[in-house]
């Protein structure tokens, strides 16, 4: 069984893992064999990923940003982020003390951005988790029952896909803004609003992938051996769908972070926290745009773009490493 679920890693071109195992000659337990194959697959994956230069740049940039967000409390004095504790005068241009100048209350824009990364990344990650879980659930269910659920299953599957398509066509932003507007203000609301609106793409992708997996012989075998729907979905389909989901997840984080900033900019974000979109909204409402206070509005946008771009680069690199293998399997 584990051999089946391992097929992803092990059937990459060359198949040198098998050769290496055979050459050893010593008896190896299946578990150790599986572990060794998994380690080998992981190494090969890392090797292929590092060959993608853009993906590497994205990964490095991302690590730096995540570290910055984690250590923000050490770098930034939280008291100086309040309106009353602002250390400088309003709209100070960039200087040695305030590398990115100050905002209309005299707070350091750099500090705001460092602190804002925490909310932006958190919302980005959690909203992605919500949408990926939802999308995977719907996608695997629709795919599985569409392929092997009989007439009733096909009805379930087509209803699920109709719902997915409906959400897919709907203007994402309008729905997210509407949700954020009617639910109580807060970070949780933003996460749910984004998560509930960006899942359909994942669902479609996962469904297509599930159908491809279901067509493979080992799923047939598992069914013939009496594996129930849950067993087949959890043990056979899910592990084989995960790599695609991983790449999609990485791309979705970028979407979610942009969505968060957009909601904050439209004024339906959480007013009590500092996020990149919130800083931009504040900059606009304070009139920084028309008075050309560029240091108040350019850096937060660049930060959003940098994070989104990093995630996108990583996601595309993952996709290009994973996809040729998937194509081979079909």
């Amino acid at each position, binding site marked *: 069984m584990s051999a089946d679920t391992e097929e992803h890693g092990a059937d990459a071109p060359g198949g040198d893992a098998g050769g290496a195992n055979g050459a050893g000659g010593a008896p190896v337990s299946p578990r150790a064999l599986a572990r060794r194959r998994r380690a080998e697959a992981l190494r090969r994956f890392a090797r292929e990923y590092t060959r993608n230069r853009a993906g590497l740049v994205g990964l490095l940039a991302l690590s730096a940003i995540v570290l910055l967000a984690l250590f923000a409390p050490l770098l930034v004095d939280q008291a100086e982020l309040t309106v009353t504790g602002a250390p400088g005068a309003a709209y100070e241009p960039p200087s040695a003390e305030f590398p990115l100048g100050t905002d209309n209350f005299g707070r350091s824009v750099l500090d705001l951005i460092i602190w804002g990364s925490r909310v932006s990344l958190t919302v980005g990650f959690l909203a992605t988790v919500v949408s990926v879980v939802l999308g995977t659930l719907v996608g695997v269910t629709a795919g599985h029952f569409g392929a092997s659920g009989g007439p009733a299953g096909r009805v379930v599957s087509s209803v699920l896909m109709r719902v997915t398509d409906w959400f897919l066509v709907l203007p994402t932003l*309008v729905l997210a803004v509407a949700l954020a507007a009617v639910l109580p203000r807060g970070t949780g609301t933003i996460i749910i609003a984004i998560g509930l609106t960006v899942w359909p793409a994942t669902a479609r992708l996962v469904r297509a992938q599930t159908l491809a997996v279901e067509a493979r012989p080992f799923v047939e075998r598992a069914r013939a051996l009496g594996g129930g729907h849950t067993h087949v979905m959890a043990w056979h389909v899910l592990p084989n769908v995960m790599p695609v989901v991983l790449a999609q997840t990485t791309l979705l984080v970028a979407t979610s972070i942009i969505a968060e900033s957009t909601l904050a900019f439209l004024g339906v974000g959480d007013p009590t926290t500092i996020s990149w979109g919130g800083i931009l909204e504040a900059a606009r409402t304070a009139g920084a745009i028309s008075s050309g206070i560029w240091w108040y509005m350019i850096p937060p946008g660049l930060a959003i773009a940098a994070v989104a771009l990093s995630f996108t680069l990583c996601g595309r690199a993952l996709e290009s490493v994973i996809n040729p293998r998937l194509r081979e399997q079909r």
Partner: protein
Amino acid sequence: MTSDPVTPGAPAGAEAPGAPAPAGPAGPGRAGRIARYVAGRLATAAFSLLAVVVAGFFLFRILPGDPVRAMTEGREVTAEQREELRRQFGLDQPLWQQFLDYLTGLLRLDLGTSFQFREPVTELILERLGPTVLLAGTGTVIAALLGLLLGVRAGWRPGGRSDRANSAVALFFWSVPTFWLGLLLIVALASGRGFMPGLFPTGGMVDPAATGPVETALSTAWHMVLPITTMVAVIYAQYLMIMRSSLMDERGADYLTTARAKGLRDALVRRRHAVPNALLPTVTLIFLNLGQVVSGVILVETVFSWPGLGQLFYSGLRVPDLGLVQGLFVVFAASVILMNLLADLVYPLLDPRVRP
């Protein structure tokens, strides 16, 4: 069907099993098939519209708990005023009655009353429709042309210099928040601060001082430059990516080898054979992604104070004016569904294989 004079030994019609329908466009069953196809699409669209209507009710009447409290939060409103508002919006009725009123209202194209403007939502929307259609239409057409053109060039030689440059630029625009790009353009080209003169207006649609149709048109065009630039920058990137990948999928197709073997030059192979095929999935995806055009319009209108539906939506959000936001939600979603219906009906003209 095919009488076969060349090989008399073979039974005529031996090839028939695989061949569908006789030649000639006007078989008796054809009209029926078209009618069935159209009816199917109409039914799907109608069902989606109904779902939008229900979702609108659920989102704005049920989810907020007490819509009036949500709308008047943070304002000094007496209990009597709240009651008055409730009556005015029909919120004192039982839920099923509210839903029924909402439905019958929609059938009469009555989207309720705006709390903020004290005007029927339908009228507000009709007033603002023109500017939005102008902005979104122009932006989408330019973005589609640009994206498809560059996508064809990138996808025909993937990995080439043009592909790498185009993909990098597209990825950057894809990663940038729309509204920030707009703000950036304002700071750089419109604010008149810093080193750049204020070349373009910071917002609005037309100079109030403009008189006469020519002057108004010129002023409108002038005001459109920055909003359109922002919209195009954000939307064209996805068109480019879609076109690029579907052309890449076609690149290995056998019929392209045939075209090359016929002696067509590369540009002609691409234009006459590859692009028409690659366009099919692209068109589908472009219509499927129309929702993002709506998102783009809302943000661009907000940033540039363009007097359209997007800005109306934003002003409704700020209050919050739930009646207005609800009406706009229904209108935005319905328009996207209708555009997709249009795409479904037009698609068979592009692809002979799905012709009913």
